[in-house]
């Protein structure tokens, strides 16, 4: 396998990853600001971003930390947000399962939504790619995304302490979650799950922090799956 084809696949990946820069930069900066506002120091904010490298879970954890939820519920909620990553992992096995262990570990670390979505689409469309070319493509997609995520978070965290109250940054987090939610509402079962999640969370608002969230999420999972089964039976 000549190195040049791996390189061209890497570059093809970079081309696919670049547009996400416009989402990753504001999102990363926002995490830096929100994390700092919540009381994390810059080392903690950066450790979140570099070690966890999962925006939605990071925002979830920080929100529950500001509400002083029990640690076990903070972890459970944030990891639940990340459960979809196990699905991504399973979906990549047919394409990358034969790669060396260290490459699979690196892919796993970098397997954020955007890297997964681009790679899965490419691997499916081009079944003739070799494992090495697939790894090169995946790394290409991640190449602009991961460093920018770190940098943007650092910029946000550095600015965070200087942002005045008038900017109403308390509401940056809800708007971020709403923005992430939109593209996920792609079928009736998804919409039903989202509605149940919101309603149950509002009803259980009096419970200690984090508990209402877990109960609401479990109800929503059940309703989403049940709606899907009901639609399949009807069809």
């Amino acid at each position, binding site marked *: 396998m000549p190195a040049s084809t791996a390189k061209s696949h890497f570059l093809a990946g970079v081309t696919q990853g670049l547009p996400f820069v416009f989402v990753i930069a504001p999102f990363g900066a926002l995490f830096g600001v929100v994390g700092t506002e919540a009381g994390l120091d810059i080392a903690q904010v950066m450790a979140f971003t570099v070690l*966890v490298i999962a925006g939605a879970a990071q925002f979830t954890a920080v929100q529950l930390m500001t509400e*002083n939820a029990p640690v076990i519920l903070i972890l459970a909620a944030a990891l639940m947000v990340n459960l979809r990553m196990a699905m991504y992992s399973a979906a990549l096995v047919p394409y990358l399962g034969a790669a060396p262990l260290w490459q699979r570990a690196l892919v796993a670390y970098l397997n954020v939504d955007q890297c997964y979505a681009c790679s899965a689409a490419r691997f499916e469309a081009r079944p003739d790619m070799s494992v090495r070319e697939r790894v090169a493509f995946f790394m290409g997609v991640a190449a602009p995304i991961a460093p920018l995520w770190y940098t943007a978070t650092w910029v946000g965290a550095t600015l965070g302490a200087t942002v005045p109250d008038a900017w109403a940054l308390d509401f940056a987090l809800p708007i971020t979650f709403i923005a992430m*939610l939109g593209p996920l509402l792609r079928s009736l079962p998804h919409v039903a799950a989202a509605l149940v*999640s919101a309603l149950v969370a509002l009803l259980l608002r009096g419970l200690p922090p984090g508990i209402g*969230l877990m109960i609401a999420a479990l109800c929503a999972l059940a309703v989403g799956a049940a709606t899907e089964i009901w639609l399949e039976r009807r069809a």
Partner: protein
Amino acid sequence: MTLSGATIWGIILALAAGTFLLRFSFLGLMGDRPLPGWARRLLKFTPVAVFPAIVAPLVVYPEATGGAPDPARAAAAVVALALAVTLRSVLAALAGGAATLYLMLWLTG
């Protein structure tokens, strides 16, 4: 936040390990076995099951106003959701929501 520095670091490291293990799980350890159908069905809904439960109380009872309903924040949430659903664009929803919030705060403030 009243958590100690050590607790915060513990949360960060546990989340880092847990997230990596979720991402590494099948690719690294489980080989080629597919997930059972019921697990795939439930996993698919995890983000839509979690995000609204986080957001809804923050929108209806905003922290900044001590839990009193706030027209500016409610309008920002509605605009962000409408843009997110219709345009499927995270960036457009963020921008529209922020613009609405500032416009409403300026009008009502």
